[in-house]
């Protein structure tokens, strides 16, 4: 099922709530190639977060398939835990573990899952913290950190698993404006380093500058997609033009 550099392929994914009364996704198709940075944009309620959360099965699709390296994650027989390790996820509200120090937040999963020894995991965590300039926060608890620091540490926590793809669910939406920049800078760094990324975002500047491909969601499915230039400078559908006129 795998072709070349394809990491994720979404086929005909739908998601319904309340027995079909609410249709969040109405038939999504999408591929993610290695090294790609994909920005998913769209109005709120268009299903962009739902689609992203389906990629690592935090949201179970009502129908359709999600292939990760050719393995269908929507198949109940698949061990999701093995595949989720390879898909880092960053949340709008950070979701750091408040009862663990920064260091423990980062090393918990790799050590528990025996991917690294405690010493190796801590060395790796220290290196990552140093890279984002927060080495001195290793033994702090999350409630001592600013929103921007929390989100950067949440990104580091995901990176510590050495994922093949990073999923970002509106990573700057809960931040005070003056902290958005530091998080976007880190994400830009990751993109430059060749990380495969899928980013649900309201930051059009970031989408335009960093993404290789922009997907505009409407009515629960990708409505228009293309290069940032095509999407932002030559929108085809009225819906996208309308959306851009409101957010730009």
């Amino acid at each position, binding site marked *: 099922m795998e072709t070349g550099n394809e990491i994720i392929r979404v086929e005909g994914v739908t998601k319904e709530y309340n027995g079909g009364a609410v249709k969040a996704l109405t038939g999504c198709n999408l591929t993610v190639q290695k090294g790609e940075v994909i920005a998913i944009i769209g109005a709120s309620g268009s299903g962009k977060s739902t689609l992203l959360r389906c990629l*690592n099965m935090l949201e179970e699709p009502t129908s359709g398939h999600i292939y990760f390296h050719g393995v269908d994650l929507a198949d109940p027989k698949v061990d999701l835990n093995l595949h*989720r*390790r390879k898909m880092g996820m960053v949340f709008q509200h950070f979701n750091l573990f408040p*009862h663990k120090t920064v260091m423990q937040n980062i090393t*918990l999963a790799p050590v528990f899952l025996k991917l690294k020894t405690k010493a190796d995991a801590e060395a790796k965590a220290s290196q990552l913290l140093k890279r984002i300039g927060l080495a001195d926060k290793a033994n702090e608890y999350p409630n001592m950190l600013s929103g921007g620091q929390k989100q950067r540490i949440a990104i580091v926590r995901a990176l510590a*698993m050495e994922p093949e793809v990073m999923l970002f669910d509106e990573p700057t939406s809960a931040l005070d404006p003056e902290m958005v920049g530091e998080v976007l800078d880190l994400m830009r760094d990751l993109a430059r380093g060749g990380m495969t990324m899928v980013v649900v975002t309201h930051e059009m500047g970031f989408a335009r500058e960093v993404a290789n491909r922009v997907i505009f969601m409407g009515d629960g499915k990708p409505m228009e997609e293309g290069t940032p230039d095509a999407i932002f400078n030559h929108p085809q559908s009225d819906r996208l033009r309308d959306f851009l006129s409101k957010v730009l």
Partner: protein
Amino acid sequence: MDWEGIFGGMSSASFFNFSFMGKYGGYILQALGYTLLLAVVSVLLAIIPALVLAIMRLSKNKIVRTISGAYIAIFRSTPLLVQLSIIYFGLFGAVRIPNTWQLFGFIPLSRFIPGVVALALNSSAYVAEIFRGGILAVDIGQTEAARSLGLPAWPAMRMVVLPQAIKNVLPALANEIITMVKESSICSTLGMAELMFAAKTVAGSTYITLAPYTIVAVIYFCINYPASKAIEAIERRMRRGDRK
């Protein structure tokens, strides 16, 4: 203290005829120990089954959920006295504990164990609901973050959700001990020599009909009221800590 001299002249139906205290004070104190032991041991024993029930109650599997729900419904919807009687005469009618086995020299295990088992089974239904509430109060994002890192369901629960839930439920758990201090008085009906039983015994043997109950009420109050106030204070401090 000369209890006899101070209270001896009072009527046997007086609220405050404490003339029996010289002779029975020690006995009542011992009964207080029995009551506290019943309450604390029951709630401690209830914690693990309650946790299992709470997690079952939150399971995706409908059968597992139903089993736990049925247990909780049965124990919350029938009187403790009925449960105690069924367990004492039914379960421990079949499994006999020798009369000679004693705890601290004054608590016969043949009565204490059935009492504790009944109270613990009952309490576990209530504590399960406390735990369920505590687990649900932890932001779902915590579970999602843990699962997205590849942690399986139980490790995510154990290492991420439960430590945060436990903190939420400690005050409610302490309140459950207070409830059990009071509820355990029901064990007097089966001859367990806790506070209520002591009051009945003293009233029966001294013909002072009211004051033994007064003194027992005062003892219950002096244990439970300060304890509940202390829990409230701890709760207030914990809330202040959360807001930060």
